[in-house]
């Protein structure tokens, strides 16, 4: 159980204008601006839940993860993870969490990955039987057998990320924080990583909180979404709810051989060219199947596709809606 209540965090950032004069001035007088990274953040996550945490760059995603993992002390507010305040009982708290920062590495650069794993075994005092079981299991699920004996510096990004994820799970944490785990990965690695995270959540009931800019991550993994912008939680709901909310209109693409269109209420012809037509359907006026049926009476349809707003478009429209 993770619970955040009215968490605030402000950073001080030195600022100055361009130019030599300004640079020299900044030697003596330094101007700081307060950047409020988190304002009044409250939410809770139940055990075994998988939550996607989204928002534009600099919205406060990583800061929230850092608060929850005990790295960052907020200015005010409460955070309670399994009964512990992360920054107060850091050492005890971190035993039950696994963290992956997609943009950093926890593996020792010069030595084979397995050496880093053994160091982690000793740092977390993992009993050797449990350690062996976990390494075997993770090796199989993430296909690491070829990688463990290779120095981290010689791994590709996708290979390294699989090892990073394994490294964060060696001590059987109940909660897993993933900060952009798929950043920079190719399609195959992304899918492998997603599949693994999903399985882990389903089979081990590991609570997963994941930040990402990749909407496919969200679609593939999470039921629940938290949207953060300018340090505030703007939305907390399920992906399907969100989609519904923005899915009053559907786009219908049709290829046809013969016939002409009859005007239809709730259906708007947007484009027409050489046997192709694009319609927008207002689903509150007419259902998608109703619209297709009516259209098919007058024309010979050879191909068609219906598109809802993609998650990507959804997020763009959300960012627009909240002006973040």
């Amino acid at each position: 159980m993770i619970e955040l209540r009215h968490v605030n965090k402000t950073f001080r950032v030195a600022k100055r204008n361009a130019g030599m004069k300004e640079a020299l001035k900044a030697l003596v007088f330094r101007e700081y601006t307060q950047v409020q990274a988190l304002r009044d953040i409250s939410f809770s996550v139940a055990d075994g839940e998988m939550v996607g945490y989204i928002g534009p760059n600099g919205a406060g995603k990583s800061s929230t993860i850092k608060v929850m993992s005990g790295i960052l002390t907020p200015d005010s507010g409460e955070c309670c993870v399994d009964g512990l305040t992360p920054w107060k009982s850091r050492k005890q708290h971190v035993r039950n969490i696994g963290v992956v920062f997609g943009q950093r590495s926890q593996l020792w650069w010069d030595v084979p990955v397995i050496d880093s794993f053994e160091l982690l075994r000793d740092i977390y005092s993992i009993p050797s039987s449990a350690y062996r079981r976990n390494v075997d299991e993770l090796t199989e699920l993430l296909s690491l057998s070829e990688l463990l004996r290779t120095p981290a510096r010689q791994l590709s990004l996708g290979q390294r990320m699989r090892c990073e994820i394994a490294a964060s799970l060696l001590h059987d944490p109940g909660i897993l924080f993933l900060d952009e785990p798929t950043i920079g990965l190719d399609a195959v690695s992304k899918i492998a990583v997603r599949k693994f995270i999903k399985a882990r959540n389903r089979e081990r009931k590991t609570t997963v909180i994941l930040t990402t800019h990749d909407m496919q991550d969200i679609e593939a993994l999470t039921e629940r979404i938290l949207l953060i912008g300018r340090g505030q939680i703007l939305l907390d709901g399920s992906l399907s709810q969100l989609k519904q909310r923005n899915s009053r209109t559907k786009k219908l693409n049709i290829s046809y051989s013969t016939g002409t269109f009859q005007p239809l209420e709730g259906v708007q012809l947007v484009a027409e060219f050489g046997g192709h037509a694009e319609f927008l359907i207002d689903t509150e006026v007419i259902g998608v199947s109703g619209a297709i049926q009516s259209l098919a009476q007058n024309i010979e349809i050879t191909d068609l596709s219906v598109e809802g707003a993609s998650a990507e478009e959804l997020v763009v429209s959300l960012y627009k809606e909240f002006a973040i």
Partner: protein
Amino acid sequence: MNGLRKYISFFRIRFYAGLQYRAAALAGVATQFAWGLLTLLLFLTFYEGNPDAFPMEMQETAAYIWLRQSFFALFNLYAFDSTIFEAITSGGVAYELTRPMDLYSMWFTKNAALRVSRTMLRFWPILVLAVLIPAPYGMMLPASLAALVGFVVSLLLGVSVACAFLMIIYDITFYTMQPQGVRLIFVSATELLCGDLIPLPFFPSWLARPLSLTPFAAMSNVPYRVYSGNIAGAELWQSIGLQVFWLLVLVALGRCLMNRALARVAVQGG
């Protein structure tokens, strides 16, 4: 015992990492041996000019030089653990803070591990070569059994003092976010003050006395002189006491600085 294991594990992984760079170790050995010979010749010239004005025996001086060359990697204050600077300046410290260990102990251990593992590869070839050089210019056996025990104890204490000192420099980097400046200021001064260039007894006495009370005199100065019997008896106990004193003071200071830095830490980037 379980608590100790994680610390030992840092030494192990550092040692493995060091083994990857055999050429660096070999080059280190060659350089240190050659530098030792040159230093020896320099001191020999002074010695032959006026043996009575020499503050240490020639044999003691030779032992001092050869030990310094052998254990160079252990006390070399130029050598920082670059991964720690990187962790601070680029934000990797985030990972270290998600470990169930306190950061000071972890970094202190990493530091010590870096030094010890480098030394393990390098010290013995130099010692073996130096033993082959005839007395009083080569490496001598320890002056006595007590000197050997005192050497080992003060060597360990000395490394600890050096690491505790370096921890303060890492701490300062939390504030400056740029390691070069701090390194330059501290390190160039310390090389002289530690007796790394010239053993402390060779300093003029008005300077040598106050210097012998500083933390710099509590690093390599003690073990190198204990080995040959240059420091013995009551002075040995005093020197070890000084090492313990500075170790406690520097660790307390380093911990205090680190806690303050972490309380206001903004993990850099993203």
